[in-house]
């Protein structure tokens, strides 16, 4: 993807006009010249900065749109969704926090689609470059593809300008790339955890939010994770304490939240780059914890 663009390899653009849909008049959304058969015959220049072609179905406005009160402005995209007969992968617990030894990013590994565990071993934390990882939450496919697009754009910037984009600028770039899809059903909530002149933690969401902070937890299990984090989190934690705190937070969240579970992934980012801890199965942790509680109860009774 990236090499093609850097070499300015442009394919000959082909005109596609496979329908003319002017009956809706001004209310019609200008149908982008899109590549219906995914043959990738056009370049990405005319796609509002988003390096991926999307096919937007040309649906007529439904009757409910006409009956909606005109006072509230509703973007036309809301009426252009096809009813899907299947659920997409959702539900998660991810967290990130800053302390004196860098940034910790932790996440569970369950992808659930409705009531089914679609995959028990997903990677929710993806490295973008040596000093930046991103934790993803929301719809699995959305996050995976947008991470891929982000990696591509960051690499292109680095090749074109000779230096690496700062993390704040990366967040802004991502936020502006997601902006055309605000109001659609796309659901992406990413936490950028990285190091450039100091630890950085920025939360970017497809709703448009872009927030810098010291601790973030995203997903259906986040309330439980926040509860555990808020108790112990301090700037002066040691590396071992920080890692065990992150593990504990994800473990408690997976225990209480049905849509989080299986394993915990942990990344630690410092000025030297990111390092990954071995993926740990939380089932064992549950039994260890139960044993510990059993011992404590016995000690109390004595």
């Amino acid at each position: 993807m990236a090499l093609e663009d850097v070499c300015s390899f442009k394919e000959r653009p082909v005109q596609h006009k496979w329908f003319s849909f002017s009956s809706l008049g001004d209310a019609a959304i200008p149908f982008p010249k899109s590549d219906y058969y995914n043959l990738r015959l056009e370049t990405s220049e005319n796609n509002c900065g988003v390096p991926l072609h999307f096919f937007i179905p040309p649906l007529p406005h439904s009757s409910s749109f006409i009956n909606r009160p005109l006072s509230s402005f509703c973007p036309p995209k809301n009426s252009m969704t096809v009813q899907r007969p299947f659920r997409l992968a959702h539900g998660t617990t991810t967290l990130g926090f800053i302390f004196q030894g860098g940034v910790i990013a932790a996440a569970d590994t369950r992808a659930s689609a409705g009531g089914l565990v679609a995959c028990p071993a997903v990677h929710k934390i993806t490295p973008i470059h040596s000093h930046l990882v991103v934790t993803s939450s929301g719809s699995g496919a959305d996050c995976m593809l947008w991470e891929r697009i982000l990696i591509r754009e960051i690499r292109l910037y680095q090749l074109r300008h000779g230096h690496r984009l700062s993390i704040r600028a990366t967040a802004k770039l991502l936020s502006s790339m997601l902006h055309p899809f605000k109001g659609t059903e796309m659901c992406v909530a990413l936490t950028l955890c990285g190091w450039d002149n100091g630890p950085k933690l920025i939360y970017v969401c497809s709703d448009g939010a872009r927030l810098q902070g010291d601790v973030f937890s995203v997903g259906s299990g986040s309330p439980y994770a926040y509860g555990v984090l808020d108790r112990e989190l301090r700037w002066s934690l040691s590396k071992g304490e920080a890692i065990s705190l992150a593990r504990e937070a994800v473990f408690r969240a997976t225990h209480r939240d049905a849509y989080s579970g299986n394993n915990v992934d942990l990344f630690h980012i410092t000025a030297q780059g990111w390092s990954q801890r071995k993926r740990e199965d939380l089932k064992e942790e549950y039994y260890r914890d139960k044993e510990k509680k059993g011992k404590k109860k016995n000690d109390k009774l004595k």
Partner: protein
Amino acid sequence: MLSSQHFGDPGKMKDYHYTGPVEHKFSPYAYNGGTVLAVAGEDFAIVASDTRLSEGYSIHSRDSPKCYKLTDTTVLGCSGFHGDCLTLTKIIDARLKMYKHSNNKTMTSGAIAAMLSTILYSRRFFPYYVYNIIGGLDEEGKGAVYSFDPVGSYQRDTYKAGGSASAMLQPLLDNQIGFKNMESVEHVPLTKDKAVQLVKDVFISAAERDVYTGDALRICVITKEGINEENIPLRKD
């Protein structure tokens, strides 16, 4: 085609039970059933599917396999909406040819998986209603299985079941191939013959309990010698 079914069990006949006045909208999707399974071994991969094509209470065909040969080392299994399966395989074939002509080499399994992911995601707002599983050999000759969701999220696995009986088969595969949820069991590596026998047993069980799975089983075994296809009859009721 029947009215749209929002997140209910796929294919369940809601129309035949009176639920009150309902506004029927045209749904561009239908559910044609079928189960696909893929297993990756040390130097082989297996992609298997049943051959029943159904819709609602009817069976359209008893001989409609869901495995599609893409290259000499890759087979794609797709189940869900048959119309989208056909179009998707046509598009993938065209893209494979284009790649071959521009790059003078065949696409590897990993590359096909990445390409399929972008093809599926480009239809994020009007998805292909297809559950895909790619089985094949990677560049080193080891077995590889890539499983997808309808919008393009994918991951490399050792084994995966997709389609109507997937919720029944996946736990069985977790236990027999992944040795999960068992204590003190020796992790024996899977041989090709054992894997083929396991796949046959698993589909026989699926045909017993899932109405959309049955008629016949098509197994494609991919090794460095090529792709070997086998047809086994299943329950026809």
